[in-house]
């Protein structure tokens, strides 16, 4: 239960930085924190009490399917991490492009400028 509350707090921190910060780099940091909180939430949904990792070895063949954690969220999160990396890379390059074009990273000033 405390894990879920921690994850929700982390998501709130991410949404706060995403909506209320005015610097574009801080907005991107908030996006990264928010997606990482979602990854943590999915991983914690698949946990089993006293579980072992979902990798079969010669020592644990006998009790493997009764003790291992859920492997499906881990695989999905592995996919999601890479997509998060590419989204962050494109967002950072767009921030660089914005700084070159307007000379600032403040989103309120960017809204005032036109062109």
């Amino acid at each position, binding site marked *: 239960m405390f894990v879920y509350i921690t994850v929700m707090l982390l998501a709130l921190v991410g949404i706060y930085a995403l909506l209320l910060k005015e610097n574009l780099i801080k907005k991107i940091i908030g996006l990264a924190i928010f997606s990482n909180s979602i990854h943590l939430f999915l991983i914690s949904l698949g946990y089993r009490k006293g579980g072992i*990792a979902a*990798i079969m070895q*010669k020592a644990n063949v006998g009790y493997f399917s009764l003790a291992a954690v859920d492997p499906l969220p881990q695989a999905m999160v*592995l996919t999601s991490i*890479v997509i998060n990396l*590419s989204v962050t*890379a494109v967002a*950072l*390059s767009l921030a*660089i492009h914005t700084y070159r074009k307007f000379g600032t990273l403040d989103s309120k000033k960017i809204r005032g400028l036109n062109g």
Partner: protein
Amino acid sequence: MDLIIKTVSRILFPFILLLGTYMAFHGHLSPGGAFPAGVIIATGFALLIISYREGDVEHRLTKDELIDLKSVSGIILIILILSLGHHIRDEVLATQNIFSLWSGGLTPVFNIAGMFMVVTAIVVILYTIVRE
């Protein structure tokens, strides 16, 4: 950069490459796989790019070689994944036994090709962001 950082990163780079290659080759038996291996090798290149100038790094792996590697490994991945449901996979599985290095169907090949794709993507991103 500093002389100590240059020397240490030059010494450390082959070992990072070795660790990443091990994680790709052994990924179907132990923790690891294509993405951690690719990210580890890309951090090795990032270490070189930070400590040296970017033009000094490019003689190890230029951008044209990166894009060639990316397209070749992508074509391998597409051909192998599209032929997964057919008879190739069963024939490969018949020659293998579990817990050995050649096991897991075609997943070792997938791991190595995916490692190349991740390395090329991240190093292309690093080169372009550092060069600006």
